[in-house]
């Protein structure tokens, strides 16, 4: 038998297997399933931040042609309520809605109109009249609500060594506060659902990242058996964390469908995406860094003040990165939360790292400047191969290599250490660097493989409840099957996003690729091993899968597999690492700037498909640049609504903003992480990008910008004419 090289196995830059479906509009997103007899629901939002509904007039809406039902707290089905005060928001949390006349934030759902057409529902929703009793003590202003801050009852506050001692040993201390605003995930695909009841069971076609948790949330909220719920998320047009948990539009659709006896579709509008889906909350991060003259870190503390909602708790782990990135003996990380009259924030791409690294990597740059040290060398000097927080080794850590290789590629040696010394006409030019890390979790995953023999050829179908949120899950799972079954990827079909399929952890936290692929691998290996065992074929004997089926006298065979972290996995800290380099040109008259170049080097384990991996990093870098350039959701100080209410006011980067981007992956296979050597990259790309750009802005202008986003107005206010203010 001749050996052929498998050009579609893992590691190959093949095109997306679902690409054609997508460009032809045949990939079905939640609201595109042709469910018969479907009607439309339109959510109604509160227009006060705190208070009570005192009357509702639905008469005008109900008179309208096509209107089937107006649902408010008065006629809504009773749902499971929270068991405790302000429980933590989790990916499988219940999502009660329309349960009382109380209003907790501006934009909270207070009703749903169901009508024959989308247009009728939208119009009727405007005609329902609510009268409110407004409370004047709503907490809508972060600054003014600070006295309400509390320490959350979890174990995330942390310290090692002695901060006081560390600071007293330091020759230099940097003590600064860094601010990041509320940001929204805003995936291109709006959150949407079609809910349909049939024979006492409900199916929800919903745009969700974790199908199993969505199922748990629906069954928990309605107190119905899990078996009676099916969730389908075949294609998801981006999530970034906003679709990790189940939001209330899904519950309203399920409820409405039961009440009107027809399938109900609810699509969250772009404006509602600001108030009725997750967000990243505002953070105020106070950093203290102590170092010796030679650059040795002696102390590092990271205090985060954020807000949560009145009803549920979420705390972004901003200080996580400060616990493990550098070799610093004295370390302290604390958190405080303010309950505010806004919706509950939740994980947004690289929760903790994206914002925490802005604070840490800015502070590191400030310290390097104080020490008159190259910020690159300062970081390298404080590298550690041990995670001092967990007190265990990193499974692999190539941070220094990322920094060195990136510096070389970027031309870091040409950087002028003194700010404002690299000029061209009106432009002030600066270089910035930052280090990145992101935990690479890996979780228990089940998969099923169905093998079919047709004229000597094996066709394989992989089934799992995994989701592809635009990241490329379909493709890398197909490549995995192709690799382990030794068949071309064209003979592999991947079916995802159905809660009837084997359970996976879904997409989030950068665990998808490693978990899904190892799950699929396990199913394929199981299939082969079982087929071999049945015929007493030795495990290492090379037999094709088609041969195996023939020897077993089968034309079809199914097997399941499960992969999970090993005992060894738990003895290590498992992270991906990276380095970001940026060149920024700031116009000294206008405060506008261009990111001219970026180099990103990552060490993220086995790269399953360079194309989809580049896509993840480039997307991450762009989102990171967005944090610096313009992204911010602003709360109106008198009313508590978001005054950024569409893409015309919530600015994300455009092509012209973005640089020439070089993405480099260091060759690495981390077999401690998992059998296939995979780590996560979905969130590595966004991490510390903001610091790299803002450090470049300092190098260009001599102005240290500690509040994101860095807009032209802030730069003009900082004064671009002259001077270095550190």
């Amino acid at each position, binding site marked *: 038998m001749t050996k052929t090289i498998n050009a579609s196995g893992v590691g190959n830059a093949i095109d997306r297997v679902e690409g054609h479906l997508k460009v032809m509009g045949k990939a079905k997103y939640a609201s595109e399933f042709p469910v018969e007899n479907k009607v439309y629901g339109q959510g109604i939002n509160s*227009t006060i931040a705190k208070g009570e509904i005192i009357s509702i007039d639905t008469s005008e809406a109900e008179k309208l042609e096509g209107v089937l039902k107006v649902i408010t707290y008065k006629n809504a089905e009773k749902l499971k309520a929270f068991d405790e005060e302000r429980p933590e928001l989790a990916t499988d949390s219940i999502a009660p809605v329309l349960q009382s006349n109380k209003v907790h934030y501006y934009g909270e759902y207070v009703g749903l109109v169901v009508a024959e057409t989308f*247009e009728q529902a*939208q*119009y009727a929703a*405007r005609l329902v009249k609510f009268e409110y009793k407004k409370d004047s003590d709503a907490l809508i202003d972060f600054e003014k609500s600070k006295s309400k801050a509390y320490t959350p009852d979890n174990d995330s506050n942390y310290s090692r060594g002695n901060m006081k001692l560390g600071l007293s040993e330091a020759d230099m201390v940097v003590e600064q506060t860094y601010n990041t605003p509320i940001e929204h995930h805003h995936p291109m695909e709006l959150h949407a659902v079609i809910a349909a009841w049939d024979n006492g069971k409900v199916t929800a076609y919903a745009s969700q990242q974790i199908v199993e948790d969505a199922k748990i949330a629906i069954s928990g909220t309605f107190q119905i058996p899990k078996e009676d719920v099916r969730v389908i998320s075949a294609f998801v047009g981006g999530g970034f964390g906003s679709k990790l948990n189940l939001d209330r539009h899904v519950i309203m659709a399920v409820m409405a469908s039961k009440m009107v006896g027809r399938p109900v579709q609810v699509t969250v509008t772009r404006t509602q995406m600001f108030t009725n889906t997750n967000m990243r909350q505002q953070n105020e991060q106070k950093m203290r860094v102590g170092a010796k003259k030679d650059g040795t870190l002696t102390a590092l503390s990271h205090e985060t003040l954020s807000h949560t909602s009145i009803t549920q708790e979420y705390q972004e782990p901003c200080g996580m990165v400060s616990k493990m990135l550098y070799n610093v003996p004295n370390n302290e990380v604390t958190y405080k939360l303010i309950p505010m009259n806004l919706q509950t924030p939740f994980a947004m791409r690289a929760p903790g790292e994206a914002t925490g690294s802005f604070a840490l990597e800015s502070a590191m740059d400030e310290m390097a400047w104080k020490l008159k040290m190259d910020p690159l060398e300062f970081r390298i000097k404080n590298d550690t191969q041990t995670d001092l927080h967990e007190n265990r080794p990193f499974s692999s850590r190539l941070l220094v290599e990322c920094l060195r290789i990136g510096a070389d590629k970027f031309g870091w040696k040409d950087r002028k250490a003194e700010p404002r010394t690299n000029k061209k006409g*009106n432009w002030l030019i600066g270089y910035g660097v930052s280090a990145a890390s992101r935990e690479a979790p890996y979780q228990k995953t089940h998969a099923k493989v169905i093998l079919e023999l047709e004229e000597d050829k094996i066709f394989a179908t992989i089934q799992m409840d995994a989701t592809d949120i635009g990241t490329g899950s379909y493709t890398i799972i197909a490549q995995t099957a192709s690799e382990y079954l030794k068949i071309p990827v064209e003979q592999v079909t991947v079916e995802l996003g159905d809660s009837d399929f084997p359970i996976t952890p879904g997409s989030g936290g950068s665990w998808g690729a490693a978990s899904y692929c190892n799950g699929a691998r396990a199913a394929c290996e199981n299939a082969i091993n079982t087929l071999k065992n049945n015929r007493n074929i030795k495990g290492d004997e090379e037999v094709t899968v088609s041969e195996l089926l023939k020897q077993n006298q089968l034309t079809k065979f199914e097997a399941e597999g499960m992969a999970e972290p090993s005992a060894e996995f738990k003895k290590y800290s498992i992270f991906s690492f990276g380095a970001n380099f940026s060149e920024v040109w700031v116009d000294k*008259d*206008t*405060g*506008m700037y*261009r990111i001219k170049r970026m180099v990103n080097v990552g060490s993220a384990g086995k790269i399953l498909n360079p194309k989809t991996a580049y896509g993840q990093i480039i997307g991450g870098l762009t989102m990171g640049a967005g944090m610096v*350039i*313009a992204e911010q959701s*602003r709360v*109106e*100080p*008198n*009313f508590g*609504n978001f*005054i*950024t*209410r569409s893409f*015309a*006011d919530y*600015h994300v*980067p*455009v*092509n*012209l*903003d973005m640089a020439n981007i070089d993405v480099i992956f260091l060759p690495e296979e981390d077999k401690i992480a998992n059998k296939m050597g995979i780590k996560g990259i979905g969130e590595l790309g966004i991490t510390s990008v903001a610091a790299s750009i803002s450090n470049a802005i300092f190098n260009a202008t001599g102005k240290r910008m500690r509040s994101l*986003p860095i*807009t*032209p*107005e*802030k730069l*003009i*206010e900082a004064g671009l004419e002259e001077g270095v203010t550190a």
Partner: protein
Amino acid sequence: MRPFTYTSATNKEQALKASTKTSHYLAGGTNLVDLMKEDVERPDQLIDVNKLDYKKITSNEKGGLSLGAMLSNAETANHPEIRTNYPLLSMAMLSAASAQIRNMASNGGNLLQRTRCPYFFETSMPCNKREPGSGCGALKGMNALHAIFGYSDNCIATNPSDMNVALAAIGATVEVQKKDGSSRMIEFTDFHRLPGDKPEKDNTLEQGELITAIHLSKPEFSDHYYYLKIRERSSYAFALISVAAGLQVKSGVIAKAGLAMGGVAHKPWKLSKAEEFLVGKKPNKSKFEAAADLAMKDAKPFEANKFKVEMGKNAIVRALTQAYEREA
């Protein structure tokens, strides 16, 4: 959206006749339809004027060119005659919105696009422009993007159009058809209003009047021009501040200056004093700075938009410098 009827007019008489107090003309729809979806504009009838024959660029008696009101922004800005004779206008128009929106947007509609004040867009907020008498939410609210000139306590909104700023610098008259079939000319500087005690009125058009043409003054700034637009990202964002600058330089001296600012007032803000000051001067940095000081002298910013004063000065100096130094 609220229900409405739709009429497509094939000539101006039909359009004028169909118009009522509660109807709206529909051109590109890029502003009007957005606002209808937001429930801010609530016409009961749309009169589509896209079939009317005002889609040409012709010569006028002032020695300039005239722009048909229903011609698209894209076709206007990219027209060879406009690019050659009115490059300032072309540059300003091409800095606006996105390619797709410019393809749809009409010249008449662009003059009439409404403010981007977020309170205006949100029907649960007070806004005198949307609902006279309800109060101005921005006055004591978030007003970083608001006016520093010519506002009243009733409204502090700005006019968002880039095209308008260039037209104010160049000089133009707007031709409108009245309901009775006659027509009238409105000086461009008189076309838009300051808010005063009627912020609901953006301009001096009477109910039902139809814009048919914009007559440009004779071209004077085809050698020295620049449109500077400062915004939060490199493209596809409204201006924080913009400056249209045109200079005519003869024998080393400024013979004529056209200067206007956007993002600072309820109407495109013509900098007449600065224009007058520059005439007869040798173009150099100190003169440009003096002109900028003069232009910004009367600015009355709020706490949140103080940055506009400094940014505005820089922008004027920069736009004049770029205009002057441009290779003819």
